[in-house]
């Protein structure tokens, strides 16, 4: 293991102290469980001089989950979220996603804030300093070129693989932020900016969040719709201690034999979590072969298949689509 560089750790107990500390240390970084950040620091990807720990912020450690809405503080640990009875009862997709992250010890440390802000991943990025130098640092760090797509012209395709975001996207999630200019709320859909440039979004795998310098995540929220059935599934090569090859969250509603609502979101495929666009068109009728073919088409259109991980991109897209179909079928059957 490479030694960590030196840094200072602050342990504020109120959000206001965080804001002040961030002003005082402009190059500081927030740290939740450190299960992602410390790995990157050890690999020499970044070397923040000051880390601001969110672990003592009592006000951000609450989970409120009712039939109508869910609000989760940024400092809530993944284990707590996964085992929260109200979350399990009303938002199974979120509890299941939390339970599927990394391994048990990571979940005991990892926080919701850290998971929402999880850095994007790529085989050319998540490597030791030595490795990156040998292989000509790419543009997500200090280089000038993307090795996954050499013709990308300044765009990074590193993949977002946080497991919680897809679930919150199904509930039209919102995120509360605080920074030097005060508080603001952003739709989760807009919080993530990295859809590469095909769809006109400004971000990519390098600039994947609309978070401003000095800002931190306070809470993530979602609104329920009565009668929604939800579930999460994930393909990983190893069954634990593994980032998702692809993760899929589905919510649907069944009225009699009619599919009356359908929402699908993914992680592990694009530089952002993807809430599938166009699923409304598949509702209003029974669940048929045509529904699945149409779902297939939406996935093909919106999920990327870049070689950013060891599992080939086309494989990832294919199994992501398969998972979506299975979950839709399963939830539809459960709704009978």
């Amino acid at each position, binding site marked *: *293991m*490479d*030694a960590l*560089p030196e840094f200072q750790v602050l342990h504020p107990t109120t959000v206001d102290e965080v804001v002040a500390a961030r002003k005082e240390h402009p190059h500081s970084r927030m740290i939740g469980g450190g299960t992602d950040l410390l790995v990157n620091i050890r690999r020499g990807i970044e070397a923040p001089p000051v880390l601001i720990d969110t672990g003592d912020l009592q006000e951000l450690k609450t989970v409120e989950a009712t039939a109508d809405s869910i609000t989760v503080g940024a400092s809530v640990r993944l284990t707590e979220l996964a085992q929260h009875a109200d979350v399990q009862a009303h938002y199974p997709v979120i509890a299941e996603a939390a339970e599927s992250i990394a*391994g048990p010890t990571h979940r005991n440390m990892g926080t919701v804030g850290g998971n929402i802000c999880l850095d994007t991943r790529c*085989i050319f990025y*998540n*490597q*030791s300093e*030595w*490795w990156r*130098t*040998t*292989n000509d640092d790419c543009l997500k760090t200090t280089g000038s070129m993307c090795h996954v797509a050499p013709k990308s012209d300044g765009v990074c395709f590193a993949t977002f693989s946080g497991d919680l975001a897809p679930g919150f996207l199904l509930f039209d999630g919102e995120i509360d932020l605080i920074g030097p200019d005060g508080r603001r709320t952003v739709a989760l859909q807009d919080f993530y900016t990295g859809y590469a440039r095909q769809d006109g979004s400004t971000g990519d795998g390098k600039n994947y969040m609309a978070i401003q310098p000095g800002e931190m995540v306070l809470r993530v929220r979602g609104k329920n719709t009565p009668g929604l059935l939800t579930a999460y599934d994930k*393909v990983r*090569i*190893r*069954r*634990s*201690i*593994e*980032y998702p090859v692809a993760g899929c969250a589905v919510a649907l509603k069944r009225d009699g034999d009619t599919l009356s609502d359908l929402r699908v979101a993914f992680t592990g495929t694009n530089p952002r979590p993807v809430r599938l666009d166009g699923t409304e068109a598949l509702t209003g009728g029974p669940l048929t072969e045509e529904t699945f073919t149409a779902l297939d088409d939406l996935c093909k259109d919106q999920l990327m298949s870049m070689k950013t991980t*060891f*599992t*080939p991109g086309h*494989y990832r897209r*294919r*199994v992501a689509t*398969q*998972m979506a179909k*299975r979950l839709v079928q399963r939830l539809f059957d459960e709704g009978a």
Partner: protein
Amino acid sequence: MAPKPGSFSTSIPYEEKKLKIVGTEPADRPDAVDKVTGRARYAADYNLPGQLIGKVLRSPHAHARVLSIDTAAAEAVPGVKAVVTRDDFPDMAVEHAASGELMINFKDVTRNMMAREKVFYDGHPVAAVAAVSESAAKKALKLIKVEYEVLPHVIDVEAAMQSDAPILHEDQFTKGVDPTPEKPSNIATRIESKLGDIEAGFDQADLVIEREFRTKPVHQGYIEPQASIANYTDGGQVEVWTSTQGHFVFRAQIAKLLQLDMSKITVTAAELGGGFGGKNNVYLEPLAVVLSRKSRRPVKMVMTRDEVFRATGPTSGTHTKVKIGVTKDGRITAGQAELNYQSGAFAGSSVPMAAITVFTRYDIENVLVVGHDVTCNRPKVAAYRAPGAPMIAFGVESVLDELAEGVGMDPVSFRLKNAAREGTQTHYGPKLGPIGFVETLESAQAHPHMQEKLGPNQGRGVATGFWFTLGKETSATLNVGEDGTVNVIMGTVDVTGGGRSALAMVVAEELGIPTEKVRVKSGDTTALGFNFMTAGSRGTAAGSMATVKASRDAIQKACEVAARIWEVETEEVVWEDGHARPASTNVGDFEPLSLADLARRAGALGGTIAGHAELDVAMGGPGFGTHIVDVEVDRQTGAVKVLRYTLVQDAGKAVYPKFIEGQFQGGAVQGIGMALNEEYIYSEKGTLENPGFLDYRVPVASDVPFINTEIVEVPNPMHPYGIRGIGEVPIIPPIAALSNAIYHATGVRLRDHPLSPPKVLAALDEAAPAIAAE
């Protein structure tokens, strides 16, 4: 080649007797508590006053000529105390030596630890630095200027064998072909193992199947990275604490590589955090010693995981061809195989060992095995638990599975019909002695696992394995303390964590005292005579031969003490149940004396009761095993879920049955990992892309079911307790067993390792039209 016992090697024949300790489950495992609480000292836990940190600069190229190395700027970094390169090490001539189950050549060893003319793989050391801190050392590494002439490289074995492939060693001409070729080649050696008449054998067959298989290199994956600390004193003493499976062999190699007297070098084997054959080779040790000599300070070096993957031995990647013929009634008439094994940067893969295991589980009259040892631009391969055997077993056991189906027999009955037994002529030379292979097949056949119902997309696979038990040089010393408790110094390394307990149990059995009264420790290289590497499943099998001899030696001394107390002749004293007793009533009416009684008085009656042994243990008692596995294949994702796993193996005699089970389970789990998702992935540039446990996917607990084990005991006739080596056999069958199970679940045969989800899915896709047509 096959290890052959010398004419002066020792074996103590099997003694059938009632055992009180061997075969039981003592509560005490001496190393366990300290390992769990973190008090056990691994090599990286050793520190010396004034120590420096050593770091290695490694090649970023897969293949390049090293034109020049400029270390001036690095030496000027504050805190840097020494920098070494190829110029600090003497060159070595070709000289071969055994190191574990593979052979080494000192000309290559010196080039592998520090590149000379060329770098041969990504991660090949080119310089090393010792500095007061890791950050100073790393800073210095960045300032070393190496001028390379980058050369074309070749990674895969088949590509390396082509006549137009980039050549690693211009002076390497294929050995084993007549006449020796004039053109250099990456094929270092061709070997052959033959029995009967292969053509005639295939002529007798009614069904002949020939297939090709490929496997990717896999790493031993020990949790503890290589670590060493060396101290070259001003007086010329060299002390090394290191992570090794054989400190005596390491001492010999350090002495040779640095041209030092062995007597000046003390190597201590620290508590080992896993080795599996991967810690049979020196990497850091000579560098640390020379850095210490140059800096006149102790130097500590610990590899990062990245370095472990890039520069310490993985296994060979292989390409194999297997052709087997059977008669209608299921009798194998001929077996032919070609084994193309990568050796990495330097010649010397496991192909000679693998070649003799190919068909040895079966009684086949006509055999032809050809093997090639092939150099390519990857790290030099190291041994890994039954080196080379899992890959060829994959081929042979897959083809056997097809043949069994072809002649309408179930896989176990087919294997039973052809199974090797006592007296079977092997294709590599000897006839087999008493072995337990048939017993493992019969137990597997009768196992409740076989009755479990399989659902849709589920399948059951069977495969078998065979490996040797190495003997070789083994020493031990036993001292009885004044209170009658016993210290045993062993010369092997406790590579499994159970070795010390097993040896303690054997000593306790011999002396007739409770196991808790015996403590076994590994001694440094000044404490004992030479010990070969703890490899080839020999730890307990050969180690106990030395401790039995040492125990009997000590008993003889104890009897002498008793004789002096009773004033009788030593021959008139016998040792029974932990006590010296008069040999008969004629000797006199004496109260039996316990070991403690005798030890207390020994000081004044001739000195400490002690025993020792310096043996060349005869090799013998090979082990056989049969594995059964059930899998479920997800047809949409290609994921293979291991549902049930059962392993039956002949242990000869299980000294400590729980440990045997642990070894069986550990071997099977490593085999499952090897089969499903482990692989070295190289970029086009020839750099390893997945040098870490996140992307080099060893299995985790959620990936494997409980491994059921069954121990068969057919005593090894060459060992007083009948013990066979058991550590390696369990890793051999899993790839084949899983591949067979996948076939029975899906109708698709996988011959391209690993059996990972993307590959399984691709194979299912490819077969889809064919299966649909059926």
